[in-house]
């Protein structure tokens, strides 16, 4: 990002700068000079000093990674600092820590990563990765068992079945494979993997495991992640009352399983279990299933993913007590009304999956040594992921990313936060726009979203005084979706009709998780609808659903600044 050095004086009226260039001196700046430089928003770009058209945003530098990698590894993982063992120490080798480590090496930092359990963390070992293996199986078996669908395609398949152990092995093998490649990628880059629980002893000082080994680092990132949250009163035995950790091992397929919580995790497991022949009862504390999704998408999802399947549900109830099966008795679940707390019902089922969310994992981290108090278990951070201590002051050289800070509990969000931190410690300020981070639920069909839901957008609009418009397109009108005989689906765009800003996009339909990135990239880069609608999509593809979505939006005519071709 050499460009950042040649900036002339800048307009002070730039709204919401996303990048603040701290003086790019070779040594850490004694006093940060905040040069505002380029905003994400269109209005900020009138002065673009390099004559960049506003579609070119200054972004994270992305030089060819391989070139940088070879340079840094041959030079022994960056130049050694004056008095620290490492430039950057990351506690926790999950997806967040891994993303941060890779970017740190690219930036020439001498990096170590501390892992007290297995490399890969929750995502790779007990989360997204093995669950995708199970969902891949679920998707196939669903197709093979859907006679009506197959017949419409002219296919004939005799009874499809599955081997539980084979499915479980597939999930386990996938996790192992990804874990190994993660480990290898860090080894080959020269990231030191220190095994043991990392405990912060004081500023810039971490003890590894119970040994006396203490390492120092100029900057430290906490990336310790989270564990399944089990509400009190629920006894997890790992066999009939389980969390996602156990469920992913698929040690048995119960005939009837109750899933407590109907968020992403619960929904994905309901997809897997019903495909494998289980019947499912959802227990949801809120008044409706799938809280957190855009209501319209949730409604459609319920119509497709819940109602026609062997699923029933109870909403507005808490599972106050769950007892595992023993002595020939089934799993019993006592339900109380979520509002009145009065006993409501008792369920007897074969298994119960607790999918009530995840709790941050900060045990043994030594937060007390640096006077940091967790809030509801989460480590408090500012928008730059800098840790805030009990007195509300920033702890120097200490950052926290991922599930442990609770900002957005998604693997790729953790990784993006890690990259953002590395950017900051290497001299370029960076604030991650969390509204541009997509999320996906890998049911069949998939659900994905980025930005605000409609109620959130309306609330914001009310507060800030702008209009909100909605555009929708159906998968029923998409050639590719119809070719696949998967016309069920909806894409929804929430936007500002006055300036074409994309506030949120929600997709339910075939491959929704892969489709969302056009929208999330547009939000991240600040691309407006009036610009993106001219982008061309290959025909016939599912991406035309989004193409149509953007084209159907009605944006007031905005006199856009003439965009000239730019020599870069």
């Amino acid at each position, binding site marked *: 990002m050499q460009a950042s050095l040649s900036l002339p004086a800048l307009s002070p009226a730039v709204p919401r700068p996303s990048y603040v260039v701290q003086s790019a001196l070779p040594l850490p700046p004694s006093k940060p000079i905040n040069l505002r430089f380029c905003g994400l928003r269109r209005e900020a770009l009138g002065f673009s000093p390099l004559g960049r058209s506003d579609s070119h945003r200054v972004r994270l530098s992305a030089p060819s990674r391989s070139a940088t990698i070879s340079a840094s590894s041959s030079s022994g993982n960056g130049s050694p600092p004056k008095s620290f063992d490492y430039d950057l120490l990351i506690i926790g080798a999950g997806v967040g820590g891994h993303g941060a480590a890779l970017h740190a090496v690219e930036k020439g930092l001498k990096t170590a990563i501390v892992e007290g359990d297995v490399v890969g963390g929750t995502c790779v070992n007990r989360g997204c990765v093995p669950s995708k293996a199970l969902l891949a199986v679920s998707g196939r078996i669903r197709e093979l068992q859907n006679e009506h669908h197959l017949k419409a395609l002219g296919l004939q398949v005799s009874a499809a079945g599955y081997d539980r152990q084979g499915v479980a092995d597939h999930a386990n093998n996938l996790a192992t494979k990804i874990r190994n490649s993660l480990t290898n990628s860090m080894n080959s880059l020269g990231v030191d993997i220190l095994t043991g629980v990392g405990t912060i002893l004081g500023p810039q000082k971490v003890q590894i495991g119970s040994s006396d080994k203490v390492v120092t680092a100029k900057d430290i990132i906490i990336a310790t992640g989270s564990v399944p949250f089990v509400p009190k009163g629920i006894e997890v035995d790992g066999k009939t009352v389980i969390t996602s950790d156990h469920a992913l091992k698929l040690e048995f397929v119960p005939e009837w399983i109750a899933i407590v919580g109907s968020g992403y995790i619960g929904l994905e497991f309901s997809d897997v279990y019903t495909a494998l022949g289980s019947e499912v009862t959802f227990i949801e504390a809120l008044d409706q299933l799938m809280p957190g999704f855009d209501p319209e998408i949730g409604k459609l999802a319920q*119509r497709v993913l819940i109602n026609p399947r062997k699923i029933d549900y109870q*909403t507005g109830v808490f599972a106050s007590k769950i007892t595992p099966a023993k002595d020939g008795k*089934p799993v019993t679940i006592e339900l109380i009304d979520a509002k009145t707390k009065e006993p409501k019902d*008792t369920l007897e089922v074969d298994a119960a999956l607790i999918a009530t969310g995840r709790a941050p994992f900060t045990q043994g981290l030594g937060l007390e040594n640096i006077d940091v108090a967790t809030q509801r278990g989460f480590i408090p951070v500012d928008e730059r992921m800098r840790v805030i201590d009990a007195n509300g002051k920033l702890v120097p050289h200490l950052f926290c990313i991922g599930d442990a800070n609770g900002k957005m509990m998604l693997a790729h969000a953790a990784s993006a936060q890690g990259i953002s931190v590395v950017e900051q410690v290497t001299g370029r300020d960076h604030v991650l726009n969390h509204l541009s981070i997509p999320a996906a639920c890998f049911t069949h069909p998939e659900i994905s979203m980025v930005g605000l839901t409609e109620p959130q957008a309306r609330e914001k609009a009310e507060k800030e005084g702008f209009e909100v418009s909605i555009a929708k397109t*159906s998968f*029923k009108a998409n050639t590719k979706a119809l070719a696949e005989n998967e016309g069920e689906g909806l894409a929804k765009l929430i936007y500002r009709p006055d300036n074409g800003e994309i506030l949120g996009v929600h997709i339910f339909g075939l491959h929704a998780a892969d489709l969302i990135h056009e929208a999330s990239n547009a939000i991240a880069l600040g691309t407006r609808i009036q610009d993106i609608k001219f982008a061309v999509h290959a025909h016939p593809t599912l991406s035309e659903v989004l193409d149509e979505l953007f084209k159907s939006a009605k944006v007031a005519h905005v006199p856009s600044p003439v965009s000239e071709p730019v020599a870069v």
Partner: protein
Amino acid sequence: MASSPFLSKTPISFSSSISTSLPWRPSPFSSSSSTAFRSNPRRRTLTVQSKIREIFMPALSSTMTEGKIVSWVKSEGDVLSKGESVVVVESDKADMDVETFYDGILAAIVVGEGETAPVGAAIGLLAETEEEVAEAREKAKSSSSASAASSSPAEAAVTPTPPPATATPAPAIAQPAPSATATYTPKKGVATPFAKKLAKQHKVDIASVVGTGPFGRITPADVEAAAGIVMPTKPVAAEPTSVAAAPPKPSAAPPPLLPGSTVVPFTTMQAAVSKNMVESLSVPTFRVGYPINSDAIDALYEKVKPKGVTMTALLAKAVAMALAQHPVVNASCKDGKSFLYNSSINIAVAVAINGGLMTPVLQDADKLDLYLLSQKWKELVEKARSKQLQPHEYSTGTFTLSNLGMFGVDKFDAILPPGQGAIMAVGASQPTVVADADGFFSVKSKMLVNVTADHRIVYGADLAAFLKTFAKIVENPESLTL
């Protein structure tokens, strides 16, 4: 989405509630459709007090006699405010969100998702206040148990083979109110989620089923056994046609199916087509064919094709212009006693879409120019594909056009849709050897059109004159582009 005010205070009769609450519905239809309502025995058992309103199955199109509940947007106990969507109903033409016109609480869902109810039947109960919710549920429950009781209680309680589902006189309400009652009886009567769903589909009273599953649980197999299903066939197949008259007709045993055969029940759209086709038998129709020289219109078509004009639009326009000169062919006979001269010329065009048959309507086809008409047609087809046609876009036709020419069909015979005076069947344009008055042979393109008409109002001479005008327009098509 079309909103239909479909709530009315009881005890208002069906027909009055329909005609007052569906202002957009063309009035000539209401008399014909109200004949479809059967007397509902449930309405006597269910003495609903004031403040508890019934939610009716709305009539979403003129041809709709029953609707399928696609999904309940709201659940029991939800507070509704005026204008909110409550339920999604699949009519014979489209899925529609149906909104409430009253504030209140959805007390009971009487007809569950996936089930069908005749137009005007109560599908749910709306209470005004919390206190009335329980009352409404009582009503819903008592009525359902009453109807269950009426069909031989002893039998239902003991034997695992109750009478087939269709024997219940009021199928739409034969199952207990969902979730409120069926979910829990300690240790006894525990049913799995799928068993409950099946029970609902097959109208089996879950309380009467003996569970054989683990922990005495009622399994899907138990419910199927109770419903008298030996082989797990498509559950929808058991859905009764609730339009049928109140006394159930025990149908004669159908001939055994060939091994490997499958029974695929009609979709709502297919059911509507079937019903219309049977109804058409009550109209005395006759047919008149006419050969038309199509060289000129083919040439014109080649010229205007780049401008987005389709053959459908050309033909619709030509038909409309001919109809303008022969209003009797655009008339219809609804009551067998009078001519109904339609005020506008609306050409319905039959199209096959998504495995179904739809007739999007080009309204005022005589007044719109060719290009607007083509534009309009594209929009209609698009909407039809995505099931978004509004009622006025498929139910207001005064004359139907059906074209199978593009498939190489040289001539065919169309069935007159109920409520219209005539339908035109257009065959392919084919090179034909013709001899002229001087005895010279030449090859000209000819297409055969065949009009089916209602002989109560359209006579042979009328049709012949109409066809002559139509042929003249098609053979000299310049006027179409004006």
